[in-house]
């Protein structure tokens, strides 16, 4: 075994990885830095990299009504709406995805594999193609401009994939474990709750993370369905900066940082489950 080529190999790979990471992360970092700068500093030339005198004014402005100058949206409200929509639909998706996933993994019914395959196909539709029909549907149902409507819509979109992830992971759990629980005196529901679900936790967390991030960041459907300011979500809030008379970049930076925060936290706490859940069954172990 020759060590030198191996070392070069790893150093080379690391450099490539660093470059890619830098390329992806720099704009985000730039936005993050901008959030601490003042309006005048952002306008001056030459551009300064680090804030000259870091300030939290942009954050204060987003959160205090007195600073809103009639232009900024009610950011605490937007954040609350986004949390409501993302968390509620995540709960719905994981709950029903677990029930459906269990059925697909364990019960025999006609057309099971076809339907399970169909769930994946439904993921391949371009969202844009569904914008107009969805708008018509939601207005007909009277669910436009309502966060509840958005919760239902996101749940419907998220359910197929969550079901699919959960079903694949439940299939990995030996049937004998449930049979053993049933011999031990458990009903089917008890054996599911006490034996199967604890073992499926990585998949449930993966499905939940996947859906939460998607729902939190969703823009297109929210933008066509939500009209009144009190119903809007953070993604619409971010887009609305474009419409302001003056582009105050420090506000964009502060808002974007706040919007990114929940997603970063979700990944920070869930990533070890995330890779495990997605790779479930990929390697026989």
């Amino acid at each position, binding site marked *: 075994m020759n060590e030198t080529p191996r070392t070069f190999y790893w150093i080379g790979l690391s450099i490539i990885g660093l470059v890619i990471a830098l390329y992806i992360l720099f704009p985000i970092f730039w936005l993050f830095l901008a959030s601490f700068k003042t309006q005048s500093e952002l306008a001056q030339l030459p551009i300064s990299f680090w804030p000259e005198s870091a300030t939290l004014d942009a954050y204060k402005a987003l959160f205090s009504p007195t600073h809103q100058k009639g232009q900024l949206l009610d950011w605490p409200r937007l954040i609350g709406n986004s949390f409501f929509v993302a968390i509620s639909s995540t709960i719905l998706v994981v709950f029903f995805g677990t029930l459906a996933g269990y059925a697909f993994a364990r019960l025999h019914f006609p057309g099971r594999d076809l339907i399970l395959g169909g769930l994946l196909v439904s993921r391949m539709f371009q969202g844009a193609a569904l914008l107009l029909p969805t708008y018509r549907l939601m207005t007909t149902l009277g669910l436009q401009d309502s966060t509840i409507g958005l919760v239902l819509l996101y749940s419907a979109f998220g359910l197929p994939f969550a079901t699919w992830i959960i079903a694949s992971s439940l299939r990995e759990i030996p049937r004998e474990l449930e*049979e*053993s629980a049933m*011999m031990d005196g458990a009903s089917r529901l008890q054996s599911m709750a006490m034996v199967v679900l604890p073992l499926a936790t990585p998949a449930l967390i993966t499905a939940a993370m996947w859906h939460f991030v998607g729902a939190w960041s969703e823009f297109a459907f929210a933008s066509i369905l939500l009209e009144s300011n009190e119903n809007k979500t953070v993604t619409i809030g971010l887009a609305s900066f474009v419409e302001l008379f003056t582009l105050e970049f420090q506000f964009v930076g502060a808002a974007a940082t706040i919007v990114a925060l929940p997603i970063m936290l979700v990944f920070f706490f869930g990533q070890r489950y995330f890779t495990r859940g997605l790779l479930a069954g990929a390697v026989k172990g």
Partner: protein
Amino acid sequence: MGSVTLTNIRKSYGAVEVLHGIDLDIADGEFTVLVGPSGCGKSTLLRSIAGLETISDGEISLDGEIINKRQPKERDIAMVFQNYALYPHMTVAKNMAFSLRLAKEAQSEIDRKVKDAAEILDLVPLLDRYPRQLSGGQRQRVAMGRAIVRDPKVFLFDEPLSNLDAKLRVQMRAEIKELHQRLKTTTIYVTHDQIEAMTMADKIVVMRGGHVEQIGSPLELYDRPASVFVAGFIGSPAMNFLPGSAKGGAIQTPNGDVIQGLPDGIAEGRAVIAGVRPEDLRLADQGIAARVVVIEPTGAETQLMLRTADTDITLTTRDRVSVAPGDTVHLQIEPGKLHCFDAETEMSLRTDDT
């Protein structure tokens, strides 16, 4: 108490019937082994008794009560699975306590029962471990512990030793048997290994293709196999079979060897199969002629692989033999040790069978 009666058990998957009417009586406290090649229906039968499979027809009763409509949890039967099926997220103690927790027993009672079972099975130092931290034999014992804490009427074992290495298998075999002698709980044990069946069972049920081929004690099956299948399945090395036809009160093989000992009343010329166990053959000056192919000394005994003009024959002897591969030897059958089967039905022609 735990006497099990199966009456005309049938099981179909769609149009395919896999159990064709099984009748079986198992007395309280009996150790019964269901044995047969894979696909013979033994596991399906066991799972039907457990309630994990629904039967298509027939009745399963336990102590006179019909239980085949009951859920598994309502049958008072415990089962040990082939892969142990231990709950990976629970410690050994929690695994064993699971059924008692579901039955809502008092914590003090649960602790006492788990401790008792752990002592019987030598699991006390392992109670706080998780299944992944245990060896195969330890997992096997936890699976048994989980069954015995419940003090059920019947234990079911589904090939419990097949995941263990040979040495551990012999050891666990003895442990299971000892456990049975101690608890005296009715036990139904499924295996494809005839040695396991022979060494453990009070009663062996040989199954084949969804039928019961023969039921009896290990030595009954060995000494009086009802068919060519049972004769060939029970015993290792397997029984030798020599096809021939009845002639003048003896069996004549196609190449002219004559084997004495044909039962009375067999019509002249009827096609029969002579069966003889390897240890019931001995080397002699005359008799069936065979060429020595391989000699396998194991110390206590020696096996000779022989080839006649028609077939291969195995001979086992405790004598030290001085033959070499290629030699021609002659074989005699110990008097009274010949088994005769009808060539067409493959059923025994023994006249003292009733």
